[in-house]
């Protein structure tokens, strides 16, 4: 059959910031860098912060990683024509985040997503889809972030994970302080605590 083949992936490399977050590389070029405001000012729902580290197989934080987030709004609607339902003005649901070069900590602000439609009439528990690229990662890694204060028991993706204890690697933990609500979500690329990565 005369199908084309997908162009092979290559690592984003250590200088990914030049292209995708040039201010972090140390210079100002675009009027508007993309992906800094995931939810926009009009989004309904709970405002939250998510932060964490990505760790390599030795347990060291990966300081040159870039993550992208893709999520529904608080009602579980994706800002995309194939969802087709309304979202708030300026809600894109997509963001891009890099780490602090010294510590490897990353974080972003958004609204907590609602439950979304799954396959065959099922419902997916609230989650944020993540895509991780870095030097040394040949093909971007997909995973999902779920919330520890939601009922995740019927989620069709979490329930596909055979080793029940590994489901915990996809669940962010909620912390409330004077500054607001923060969820912690650490990602382990390799090792005993390896995060469940998805072939989507």
């Amino acid at each position, binding site marked *: 059959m005369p199908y084309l083949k997908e162009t092979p992936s290559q690592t984003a490399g250590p200088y990914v910031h030049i292209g995708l977050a040039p201010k972090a590389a140390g210079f100002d070029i675009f009027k508007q860098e993309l992906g800094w405001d995931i939810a926009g000012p009009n989004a309904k729902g709970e405002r939250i912060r998510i932060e964490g580290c990505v760790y390599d197989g030795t347990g060291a934080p990966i300081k040159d990683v870039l993550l992208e987030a893709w999520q529904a709004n608080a009602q579980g609607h994706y800002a995309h024509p*194939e969802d087709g339902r309304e979202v708030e003005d300026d809600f894109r649901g997509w963001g891009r985040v890099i780490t602090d070069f010294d510590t490897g900590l990353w974080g972003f602000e958004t609204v907590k997503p609602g439950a979304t439609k799954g396959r065959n009439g099922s419902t997916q528990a609230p989650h944020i889809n993540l895509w991780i690229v870095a030097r040394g990662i040949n093909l971007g890694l997909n995973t999902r972030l779920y919330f520890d204060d939601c009922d995740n028991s019927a989620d069709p993706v979490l329930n596909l994970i055979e080793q029940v204890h590994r489901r915990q690697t996809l669940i962010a933990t909620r912390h409330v302080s004077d500054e607001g609500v923060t969820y912690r979500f650490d990602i382990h690329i390799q090792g005993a605590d390896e995060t469940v990565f998805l072939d989507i």
Partner: protein
Amino acid sequence: MKPAEYYMRDRQHHAPALTPEYKTSVTRSPQYALLSLENSLSEITGPVFSHNDIDALDNDLIKNYTHGGDPIGERIIVHGRVLDENARPVPNTMVEIWQANAGGRYRHKKDTYLAPIDPNFGGCGRTMTDADGYYFFRTVKPGAYPWRNWVNNWRPAHIHVSVFGAAFAQRLITQLYFEGDPLIAKCPIVQTVPDAEAIDQMVAKLDLNATIPLDSIAYRFDIVLRGRRSTLFENRLEGN
């Protein structure tokens, strides 16, 4: 089009996660199997961009960081189409690029290579494909540069390319190489990809017809994203 699934990614066409000759991959590669998912709404949707997100000059790396002059280097045009595996154009999708300057130096605070920064070259650009999936950039040809892997490794001249497609399942970052570069065969990063034809897909071809005489050399680079089924089978994406 009704919601339909994307073709399974052919992972034998991509580099595996663990590629020991590219040393950084050793501790940055998952060891457990990936969990294979059938597409849901979360995967067949993805961010939508418009021309309001970018500026007209963003795809012109010769002018988008000018500080009174043009950058040093071979003036080139990189152009092509973004297609899916069914050979259909992918319209209105964002393409972003970044690269070293003609001396092989990145404008990045972590790059300490001896080649100098070019005051007129930023090294990044972005554009949207048109209705036919067509895109182009004007830039200078990047230089090769050394990197720490083996003691004497040189990256072939390359441009990093990021493409969104219409769905999160199509998201892709790759690198564009230049036809005829002898360093391609020597590069442990290029050679992570196991298949020679797959590597050739990452090599931009000299395109004399698109060259602007007495001005800029053109290279053609078509990008293929995952295709999708045109029909739904009994296993429906949504429960209606």
